[in-house]
């Protein structure tokens, strides 16, 4: 009898388990109600959109990896009385697990999200048909087409910054970072656990950046790069660079304070925005902005709508808002640095004098490209993963 009960328990559990398997998402033949609403919303004025949004009941939930979204939500609610918006701060990697599980399920989850990492967003969410893009046509002339689908709202830069407490260091070319003298002195989040860092390395293997890295090699060593055991100059740089890296810190904030308070000449690759409100860091750190051939990595924060939202107009109005100068203010005001609106009409307001325009950084940084990442991610991840040991 007891055996039978145990057997039945296991059988029932197995049945429940496999009955609950996630069904494959089939490609939509016709536009969904959400897509139709967003298409309509893209050409509406903010006033008309507000009227439509007021007819939607409930609370629009937005997930964001950036905590400043909370401030934007507050000012949005103040500007558009009657609309209910709730902001949730979600970690970078948890974001994909949560959205991937929630969207299309019975869970009352997010309506839209502000998220980073083009590769994971594309492969885990967009390719699976879980996100819908919305871009307001009124911004077509002031936002670069590459940031219109998927819609980006912000660009963020991670820069190489070094501790200047004992004066200048001899660092003017990225190949210097592969020299023995920097062994253990470069602080970088373990790219095998931190997807943004991995995206940076993957981007380096693109044709465009391989060419630039070869040129930097020639400038540094005075001879052309010759292929040996490496597939390209990029792979060689990645390999030697990773050998010099320390993964002591698990967060950008930790790298910032570690390099600021650590040994002179130590270098960190972390988000420039960490210098905000940190006088010691601003004093002790120098961004390697003139490094040949890149000063760091630049990547967008995307604004995407969940396919199962029942508040498409509120989502659209919120995206319109954060693309405007007023709505992007939490990220771009004079007290903030290292965040740049994709809207070219919004000027740089940095009051520290350390920051520069988005074009300045775009010309000096490796820029994330979701399509290239999708094509090369697996190969580079495996190359990198076996080197971090």
């Amino acid at each position, binding site marked *: 009898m007891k055996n039978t009960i145990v057997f039945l328990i296991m059988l029932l*559990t197995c049945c429940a388990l496999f009955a609950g398997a996630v069904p494959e998402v089939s490609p939509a033949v016709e536009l969904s109600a959400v897509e139709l609403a967003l298409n309509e919303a893209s050409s509406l004025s903010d006033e008309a959109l507000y009227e439509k949004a007021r007819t939607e009941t409930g609370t629009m939930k937005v997930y964001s990896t950036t*905590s400043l979204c909370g401030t934007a939500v507050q000012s949005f609610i103040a500007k558009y009385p009657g609309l209910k918006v709730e902001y949730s701060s979600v970690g970078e990697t948890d974001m994909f697990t949560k959205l991937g599980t*929630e969207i299309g399920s019975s*869970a009352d989850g997010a309506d839209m999200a502000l998220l980073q990492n083009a590769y994971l967003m594309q*492969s885990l969410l967009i390719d699976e048909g879980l996100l819908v893009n919305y871009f307001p046509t009124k911004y077509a002339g002031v936002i670069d087409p590459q940031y219109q689908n998927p819609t980006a709202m912000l660009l963020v830069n991670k820069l190489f910054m070094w501790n200047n407490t004992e004066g200048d260091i001899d660092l003017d070319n990225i190949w210097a970072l592969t020299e023995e003298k920097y062994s253990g002195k470069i602080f970088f989040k*373990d790219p095998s656990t931190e997807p943004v860092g991995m995206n940076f390395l993957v981007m380096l293997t693109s044709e465009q950046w391989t060419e630039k890295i070869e040129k930097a090699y020639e400038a540094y060593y005075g001879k052309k790069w010759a292929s040996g055991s490496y597939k390209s100059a990029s792979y060689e740089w990645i390999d030697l660079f990773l050998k010099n890296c320390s993964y*002591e810190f698990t967060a950008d904030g930790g790298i910032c304070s570690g390099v600021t308070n650590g040994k002179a000449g130590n270098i960190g690759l972390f988000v420039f925005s960490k210098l905000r409100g940190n006088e010691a860091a601003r004093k002790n750190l120098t961004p390697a902005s003139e490094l040949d051939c890149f000063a760091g990595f630049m990547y967008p924060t995307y604004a995407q709508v969940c396919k199962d939202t029942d508040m498409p107009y509120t989502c659209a109005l919120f995206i319109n808002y954060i693309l405007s100068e007023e709505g992007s203010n939490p990220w771009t005001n004079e007290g903030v640095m290292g965040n740049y609106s994709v809207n070219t009409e919004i000027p740089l307001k940095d009051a520290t004098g350390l920051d520069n325009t988005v074009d300045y950084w775009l010309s000096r940084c490796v820029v994330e490209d979701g399509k290239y990442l999708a094509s090369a991610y697996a190969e580079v991840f495996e190359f990198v993963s076996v080197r971090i*040991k």
Partner: protein
Amino acid sequence: MLVFFGLLLALLTLYPLLSMLREMFVSHAGIEKTLTGLKKGSFTLFHFKKLFSAGEWSSVNFWTPFANSLLLGLGSAVLGIIIGGAVAWLMARTNLKRKKIIGTLFLFPYLMPAWTMALYWLNIFQNSKVGGGVTGLLEGLLGICMPEWFVYGLFPCIIVNALHFAPFAYILIGGILQNMDATLEESAQILKTRRSRILFKITLPIVMPALLSTFLLIFSSGFASYTVPIFLGGAVRFFTLSSKMKALFNAGYTGQAYIIGATVILVGSLILYINQRFTGKRRSFTTVTGKSGQVSLINLRKSNNPISIALLVAVIFFSIVPLLVFALQTVMGSSGVYELNNLTLEFWIGRGESSYRNGMVGGILFNKTVWASLGRLFLLSVLAALFAGTSGLFIGYSVVRKRGTRLARFVESMAFFPYLIPAISFATIYLSISSSESFSFLYNSFMILVIVAGVKYLPFASRGGINSMLQISPEIEEAATIMGIPWYKRLFYILLPIQKTSIMSGYLLPVITCMREVDLFTLLVPNAHFLLTTMLLEFNQTGYDQYANAITLLIIIIVLALNILSEKLTGASVAKGVDGGAPIGGK
């Protein structure tokens, strides 16, 4: 009742386990879809082939972390048992001075989250010669720089884990030493047997079941350790299975991540099985016989003072000093700058704009979000403890009364399994369950947090329940059974009053564990500010170290206060929750 718990545990424990099993054999979206060319959800053996095929991938992602985890588990367990066992023996079997204060402080490292001990280690020993070169307290005050192997890697991970779990060994071994019949040792003494022979031929065999249980608990925790190697291993690339599992999850190698998770469970189960084989028959009587009334304490004579002072200094170093260091970190304007003009209370009592630049409106004592998060965490801990403690009590009662049956063994094993499932896998599976149509009412709810915490901490409560019920002879119930008194009346009117302190302690342990839990909740909370611990993680990630340290300190103080308060009011404490016995070392 046993059938009810069998069904409940099948749903709450077996379901997650089978979910994990399924994930190892299917293709997932993203990189796996690219690599396998299969649709999401299709059956595949790719993950096994990839992870176990000869080559560097397998070595780096499985075998090396596996060996590291094994060494970490083994080292932590052996050292933890040596430290905890030695202190337990000194407290229970000698006339050591200052027992009360040593006994109280020795438990502190267990009450603190393991990663706070790792942070403390770094705060003390990091120096300008290793890693990032940040000056630690030892170098700042005495100019001493410890070598790299001492600061980062396997060695400090073992020390920190061992110190964190030594109180476990202390409680379990001390409990047995306290309760065992001392006449055995005394008889040997009368027969002029050497002390070492008594130790190896009498004392150690008697405490062996407790040693093996302690080994199981510390080894499993050390083997699955995640946060300690993350803090202390990154600088020297010391990876364990758990850190690799997280890395593979993040990169989208979900199937392989689950295989690693299953390996952790498998190793834990193996240890559990070995433990049951060796201790299954003896465990039931080690504590029931009652203690001898003639415990004669070994006189330490002249070495009493030196030993007790050395021990006291050591326990203060790992109990009080960490609190002071954390407190110091919270009043420093810039981390690592040990200057008077760098001191500020802004992170505690700052208001409005002045502290906004530090990442939050107001210091933590004046911030409503902090208090709301603390309130929710406290409520969650209490409810989870009620769930786990009550279930543990009933499981204990029913398993003990039906001891020897297959169903009892099934329920007992299932109740222990959540201990072996890594928190990240547990949370991921419960997120998936709460997203399904049948359980969508649980999504983003407080209830899912209560359930997940209740189930995860059930092993503590069920073990406590089983142990406390084992201590009661069935004869005590017999008269009531003959009179036809129903089981629940017997439980509430006979058994509970006898074991109320130990049962209360069974509730306290989940409260304290829940108060410091992070990994289990990050995926399931509606937002990062929902609980104080997830808020702490956010501050750690964004680099607001002072706020993170302040919250850590707040959590530690609350946990310590809870333990002390509960001991004063009800007699229940963490020590009794683990062991169920009398205080080690007497009064």
